[in-house]
């Protein structure tokens, strides 16, 4: 049923194998560690590089209807996923934790996106580079919907003496969060530089393009370490959340694939869109939730995303979604 060749082709790439190596290190009790702030360096680099490249692609494709439709679909999914996720989570968890986890799943995981893109390059399947704009624009709506849920449904339990966080602070966090800001900023820089002609782009490409695969590989080694440590914590969170962390990305990806087929996306672009919807944010949403919903337990929304959904998407999800896409969308 599952296309094992495709799955193996994904697993036997350096990024995924190093991700396994990181998980293995934790499981065997090795003291391997990528000390802070090195993971931050890799993460900043990847955001800058992907943003810049996306901006260049956006300039090349122009602001066509296809672009607007794709990005619009991403914003739509980022707003809708938290709503139905919240309803499911509310059956077992309180308002605060439900809203925080729902927001994380509405938003997306940059590294999952990047890994999927690398996989498409290995397969030499074409895709629309401007999808990175969708990546950049999915964090903010999910954060806002998550906070609206808390405002509307959770207000009563706040004690009177407590500090209040206004809507300004929420919007600030949603749009000026360091990751979102760097991604959108690099996108704009890429766009502007590409407009000036190919020289500037080429000079930076040695840095943003040639190094990319290596840094991704290194970063996934670290993410393997982080995910495996979170996996432990997740065990304590119980079967409900574990089930949620595996089934939710599947549901979101399949809805996304349906939408992609309707909008006429190519196979490669549809995979990127599916992965965007399936991913759970661990870079912008946690920071926003920590500030505005301190009642929620960070270890819940970080562990579900990093400990289970992230490895699931990287290892199983990417080849699985592509296989489904191939049966639904005809090759370019």
């Amino acid at each position, binding site marked *: 049923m599952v296309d094992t060749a495709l799955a193996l082709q994904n697993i036997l790439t350096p990024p995924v194998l190093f991700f396994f190596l990181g998980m293995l290190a934790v499981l065997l009790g090795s003291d391997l560690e990528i000390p802070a702030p090195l993971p931050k360096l890799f993460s900043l680099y990847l955001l800058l590089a992907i943003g810049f490249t996306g901006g260049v692609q956006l300039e090349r494709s122009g602001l066509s209807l296809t672009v607007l439709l794709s990005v619009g679909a991403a914003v739509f999914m980022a707003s809708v996923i938290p709503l139905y996720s919240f309803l499911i989570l509310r059956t077992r968890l309180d308002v605060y934790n439900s809203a925080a986890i729902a927001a994380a799943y509405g938003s997306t995981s940059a590294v999952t996106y990047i890994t999927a893109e690398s996989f498409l390059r290995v397969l030499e399947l074409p895709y629309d580079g401007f999808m990175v704009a969708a990546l950049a624009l999915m964090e903010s709506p999910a954060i806002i919907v998550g906070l609206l849920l808390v405002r509307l449904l959770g207000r009563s339990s706040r004690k009177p*003496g407590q500090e209040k966080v206004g809507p300004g602070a929420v919007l600030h966090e949603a749009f000026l969060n360091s990751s979102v800001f760097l991604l959108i900023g690099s996108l704009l820089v890429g766009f502007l530089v590409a407009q000036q002609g190919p020289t500037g782009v080429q000079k930076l490409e040695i840095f943003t393009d040639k190094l990319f695969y290596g840094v991704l590989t290194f970063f996934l080694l670290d993410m393997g370490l982080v995910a495996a440590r979170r996996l432990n914590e997740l065990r304590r969170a119980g079967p409900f959340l574990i089930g949620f962390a595996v089934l939710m990305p599947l549901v979101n990806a399949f809805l996304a694939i349906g939408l992609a087929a309707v909008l006429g996306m190519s196979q490669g672009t549809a995979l990127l869109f599916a992965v965007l919807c399936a991913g759970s944010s661990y870079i912008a949403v946690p920071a926003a939730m920590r500030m505005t919903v301190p009642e929620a337990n960070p270890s819940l929304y970080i562990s579900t995303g990093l400990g289970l959904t992230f490895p699931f998407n990287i290892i199983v999800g990417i080849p699985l979604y592509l296989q489904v896409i191939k049966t639904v969308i005809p090759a370019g």
Partner: protein
Amino acid sequence: MNRVDVILSERELERLVNVIDSCGTPGYSVARHVTGRGAHGLVASEALEVTGLGTNVHVIIFCEEPVTEALRTALRPLLAYYGGVAFVSTCEPV
């Protein structure tokens, strides 16, 4: 003379510094990259700095009793909302 130790999340550092300044302290010191476990059951780790959640900060303030009193009043709501701990002990300048 007193020594006040405050430990809370890095994300609240700016708020904390504003509180400290408004209490008229003669100075303060900040050590970042502090991890730990507290009442919220959270074990922060440097490995999660990449999530933007950051780690904790340990802020030390050496000050006289009246400033300590002001700090006490100003710190309590902050700690109640965001979590974190603060303790006072006595000391003398060299």
